[in-house]
């Protein structure tokens, strides 16, 4: 085995590794969404966020428009504040939009459902850093059961 042939085969090995790395980066981990720097941030306060996690999807009618950037607790009224990082190409949502925490499928993970509101004169679009006023919390099974038992008790 002469040196040139060895170097060629090792070079092929390196090329194969780069191909595998590219496959993992682009097809498996999909770096595009997170490295897409052009985005703006909206905030929403919920009573209960259920199992929402950072990097959960934000969807409008099933189309992913952004990700949950961070989740924190408001220091004054102790409600969870969710920061939503929305891609800049979707920038003209009216102020009357609402967000709710939904579950994909029966056992799927939770995501933020974004409902664009109506837009008439005098209603402005949401800007970077705005709070979305109309929010619906995640469904918590224990609360549902509690409400059900409570309403049964009334009868």
């Amino acid at each position: 085995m002469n040196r040139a042939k060895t170097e060629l085969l090792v070079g092929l090995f390196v090329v194969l590794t780069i191909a595998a790395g590219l496959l993992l980066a682009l097809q498996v981990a999909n770096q595009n969404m997170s490295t897409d720097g052009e985005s703006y941030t909206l905030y929403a306060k919920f009573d209960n966020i259920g199992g929402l996690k950072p990097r959960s999807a934000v969807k409008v009618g099933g189309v992913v428009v952004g990700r949950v950037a961070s989740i924190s607790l408001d220091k004054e009224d102790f409600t969870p504040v969710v920061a939503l990082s929305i891609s800049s190409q979707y920038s003209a949502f009216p102020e009357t939009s609402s967000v709710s925490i939904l579950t994909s499928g029966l056992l799927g993970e939770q995501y933020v459902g974004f409902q664009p509101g109506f837009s008439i004169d005098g209603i402005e679009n949401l800007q970077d850093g705005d709070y979305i006023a109309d929010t619906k919390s995640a469904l918590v099974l224990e609360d549902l059961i509690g409400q059900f038992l409570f309403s049964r008790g009334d009868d």
Partner: protein
Amino acid sequence: MNAIQAIGAKTLSKIATFGRAGQMLFGALVALPTLKNVHLTVKQMYVVGVQSLLIIIVSGLFIGMVMALQGYTILVGYGAEGSLGPLVALSLLRELGPVVTALLFAGRAGSALTAEIGLMKATEQLSSLEMMAVDPLRRVVSPRFWAGFISMPMLALIFSAVGILGGYLVGVDWLGVDAGSYWSIMQATVEWDKDVMNGVIKSIVFAIVVTWIAIFKGYDCIPTSEGISKATTQTVVYSSLAVLGLDFVLTALMFGIE
């Protein structure tokens, strides 16, 4: 009294072994491949890397295929066969890629390294090198160490990628999972820095451990045919145990507490 003495002597000799292993590793690390002798490392990368490609690709393909088959039969009961993508990708990237590659590498390349260096020692080639004022650590040990250190993470990446393609082959082409959901749910779940990078860090740690054990066992073997055979066996056993034990520690550190 003799028994206690024997325990003491055994402990001391074990600790001395660690000392020699540390010295050898230090010698190999200091002797970084320079531009002049980088061809030695390239040649060893051919031996430990390129020649391991076949077993890595075949095992990766079949492990991905088996995982897709097993995962599908369970997930389809919940109507969640769309989650097959993340199941295959996460188990390969986080665990099976680095671990199985390290185990195969220990069996395929580690044992060969031990036997080669052991035979060099038994036939006094290492002593001859020293007689010619060539440092065997620099000439023989260091290129092999760096070649293993570089090759194994590359093999682990290839293993994971091929495994995911194997899962695609069985899950999508054969069992009829939707191709779109296979990739898109995988993309939504797999994170570059958390899953892919932690897998790479794991395989770098395994690469150091396996290559270190393999080279040291050869360098430190008893220079007889029996000693070489014992050292080769020990290489495979010790590196497999070290990989599995370290994998638990690393997993606990990386994924244990959110």
